[in-house]
């Protein structure tokens, strides 16, 4: 009896659901402008522009908040909230002329008071981490009129222009002055001046933005912009291929083969403007403090192999000057700098061996060299586990250095663990060799000064960690920060790079290039030069006319799926019914 009841109920359920499926209509959520869908590779941590740290958070807030200008991939500065700017001859005063007619997304007018407020706030509150680089040298900010802002510095700092203009997102004074603790403010409904406004956020899944009608640059063509989170790189690639999303970034080099040549898909490679991925060593450990040893390592490590086989040609060849060719204004004319450039692998190994032989490091019975004072050239190399090419580079390095009589033990560790060992918050760093990567602001000061300048109290990552100090380079680094003449600053940069290529505080293995892909059959107006997530793409992208008549934003649920679900539910109900019926005593 009970079984039959269950069966009947199940059938009724199927009938009811089938009737519903036939009657249901697919979800239509799109208006004439269309909704652009881009991927994020993990969830944001917060929408607070001052304290957010996750990379995806920057991509999203860049659409809502703006800076004084943006830096293009060719290095030039493109006006945003500031139309023009000037620097005093002593590089201590910076004047920005702000754009007229800009309004906040809640309708209030944007004025110099907002800029002054933002910088004052960051200066008072050291917990607002993202703005600190700009305000550490800042003395005061004044706003002589509604559309002019003047920054005063105590000492000349040429890169301040970029730090102030590009690093700090301007927030509305009329909202933030009411916030009691800006560092703790979750900023769940951000109001900015940017082309898109915040609509909603579903944690772990997506963020929804909509076009801001009164944007100073003209309302974006698309009505909405959705960032959908795909944590799995392969799923992201498949989603683009399938048309489920319009564009995806953070594509690993191993997936590029499935994208190239696909119809209606364009693959973009964006070289990181200022990025470095290097092999480093602890200069307190003998014999890394001997320059010829570092030079020998530099010869022996096969950067061609790393470039071709590990990065598959999708990276920039490591330059010992530490600035990539993407830094067009500043990179050395001979970049990538490498003493081994143009030499064959055998020639380089011979050169390296010659250097080590010249130091009197003789190979022992096992082929590993021993220094005259008895130190065996066997070292541990810490490699961050992600991204995965770091460990492979470590293995390549071990292989290469084995040819010159050094034994390297690759130790893959979690990235944070490596960071903690190499850059401990206290105590003397205790390690031998490591691999690390970092991206910086698009000014050479942001990488060279911060990594190699060796005098406290400025915390320097590489110089402090490795125990590196070169007084000539230090002097030049100070000089370049204070040199307002671009030609002279450039000459200083070239000299610094030459010195770095000779002294080798670390050895860049490659410079990462980002891979992204987008579809071309639904939207046009993509700016491939600046990238998927750039301002240019956001304001220019629009529907292609022919597809505007066929809205297809949401994936529709096919009817047969429902029949399958109904069958599954029936099975479950039937089984539950069986199980329940077992409770009854069997008939005798």
């Amino acid at each position, binding site marked *: 009896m009970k079984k039959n009841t269950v069966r009947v109920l199940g059938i009724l359920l199927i009938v009811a659901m089938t009737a519903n499926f036939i009657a249901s209509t697919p979800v239509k959520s799109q208006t004439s402008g269309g909704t652009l*869908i881009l991927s994020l590779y993990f969830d944001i941590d917060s929408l607070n522009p001052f304290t957010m740290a996750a990379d995806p958070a920057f991509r999203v807030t860049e659409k809502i908040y703006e800076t004084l200008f943006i830096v293009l991939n060719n290095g030039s500065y493109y006006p945003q909230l500031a139309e023009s700017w000037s620097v005093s001859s002593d590089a201590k005063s910076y004047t920005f002329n702000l754009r007229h007619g800009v309004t906040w997304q809640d309708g209030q007018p944007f004025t110099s008071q907002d800029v002054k407020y933002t910088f004052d706030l960051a200066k008072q509150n050291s917990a607002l981490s993202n703005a600190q680089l700009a305000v550490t040298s800042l003395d005061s900010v004044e706003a002589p009129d509604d559309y002019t802002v003047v920054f005063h510095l105590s000492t000349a700092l040429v890169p301040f222009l970029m730090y102030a203009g590009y690093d700090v997102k301007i927030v509305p004074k009329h909202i933030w002055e009411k916030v009691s603790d800006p560092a703790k403010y979750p900023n769940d409904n951000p109001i900015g001046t940017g082309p898109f406004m915040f609509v909603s956020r579903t944690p772990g899944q997506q963020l929804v933005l909509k076009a801001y009608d009164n944007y100073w640059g003209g309302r974006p063509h698309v009505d909405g912009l959705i960032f959908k989170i795909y944590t799995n790189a392969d799923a992201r690639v498949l989603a683009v291929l399938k048309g489920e999303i319009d564009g995806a970034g953070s594509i690993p080099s191993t997936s590029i083969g499935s994208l190239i040549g696909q119809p209606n898909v364009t693959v973009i490679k964006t070289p990181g403007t200022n990025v470095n991925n290097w092999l480093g060593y602890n200069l307190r450990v003998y014999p890394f403090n001997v320059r010829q040893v570092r030079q020998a390592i530099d010869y022996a490590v096969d950067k061609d192999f790393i470039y071709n086989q590990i990065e598959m040609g999708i990276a920039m060849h490591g330059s010992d000057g530490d600035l990539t060719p993407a830094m067009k204004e500043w990179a050395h004319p001979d970049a990538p700098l490498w003493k081994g450039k143009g030499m064959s692998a055998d020639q380089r190994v011979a050169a390296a061996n010659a250097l080590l032989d010249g130091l009197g490091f003789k190979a022992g019975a096992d082929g590993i060299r021993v220094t005259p004072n008895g130190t065996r050239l066997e070292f541990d190399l810490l490699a961050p586990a992600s991204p995965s090419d770091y460990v492979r580079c470590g293995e390549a390095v071990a292989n290469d250095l084995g040819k010159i009589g050094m034994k390297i033990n690759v130790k893959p560790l979690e990235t944070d663990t490596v960071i903690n060992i190499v850059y401990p918050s206290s105590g003397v760093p205790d390690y031998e060799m490591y691999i690390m990567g970092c991206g910086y602001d698009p000014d050479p000061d942001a990488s060279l000064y911060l990594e190699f300048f060796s005098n406290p109290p400025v915390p320097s990552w590489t110089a402090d960690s490795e125990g590196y100090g070169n007084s000539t380079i230090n002097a030049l680094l100070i000089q370049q920060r204070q040199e307002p003449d671009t030609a002279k600053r450039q000459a200083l940069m070239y000299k610094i790079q030459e010195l770095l290529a000779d002294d080798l505080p670390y050895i860049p293995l490659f410079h990462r290039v980002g891979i992204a892909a987008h579809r071309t059959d639904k939207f046009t107006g993509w700016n491939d030069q600046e990238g998927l997530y750039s301002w240019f793409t956001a304001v220019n992208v629009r529907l292609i006319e022919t597809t505007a008549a066929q809205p297809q934003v949401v994936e529709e649920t096919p009817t047969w799926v429902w029949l399958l679900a109904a069958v599954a539910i029936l099975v479950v109900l039937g089984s539950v019914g069986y199980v329940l019926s077992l409770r009854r005593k069997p008939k005798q």
Partner: protein
Amino acid sequence: MREFVLKRSVFMLITFLVVLCLNFILPRVMPGDPITHLMGDVRLPPAVRQSLIARFGMNKPVWEQFLAYLANTFRGDFGVSFSQYPKSVATILLERLPWTLFLLTTSVTLSTLLGIYLGVIGAWRHGSRIDVGIQATGLALWSMPIFWLGMLLLYGLGYVLGLFPMGGATSAVMSYPNTLEFVKDVLWHSTVPILTLTLGSYASNTLIMRGAMLEVLSEDYVLTAEAKGLGQNNVMWRHAGRNAMLPMVTVIALNLAGVVGGAVFTETVFSYPGVGLLIFNAIQAHDYPLLQGAFFVVAVTTIAANFFADLLYARLDPRIKY
């Protein structure tokens, strides 16, 4: 019976307290700290580092942090997440928990039912090709790494056949016209993840059920029931199956214990916003409050599930004396 319940309750409380302490110690045993993770690539002046340390309460001595942690847990205050500052841990967990519970309770239920069904059939026809087939398929699916199984299903069903989406719990839409559309969308997105979890785990249930069933089939009363002329289904399910089900109660309890955190790989493959992925990210970020909160939920679920399994088992099996 009351004494039994009391004894079990006390034991449960003690376990719970021990787990609470471990919850605090274990995340801090990991090398690294949350501040380094947050600082990431950004060069920060020492003042910022100090303010971060103060913000996380890490400038207080450890025992003080521990007592604060205990006091707050009993008050239900799990604190504020480090990696998603200033969101409270409770909010984060509550946002993600329903997705995980939905995914995992569904797949655990399906997996258990499938396991019971196949186990009974397999034992009844033990040695036959059906039995061997059931076991072989089950073991093959079980031994595959679950993220690989997930990827295969995602690629095959989602991309090649184009029947299912590439990930997420919902579609990228501005809004839904009504709740039914939302429910349909959610079900559509969760089909392949649930399929993955079910297929990857039913084999263990099958084997346990089959083993228990084989033991029961050799009992005298089964022979008696057959001799009486009862139908095959009747004997198989009502007589043998019912008694062989007892070990499954324990198995179900164990499976339920893994409900909260047990789908990290699947959640990653399908970009499903569940607690498993949250825990994984929290470990990387050394987000102690979030880890403490998540482990607390896992501990409560596990202990409660086991407790009820104990009670249920005692109730179902009249042979057990307490």
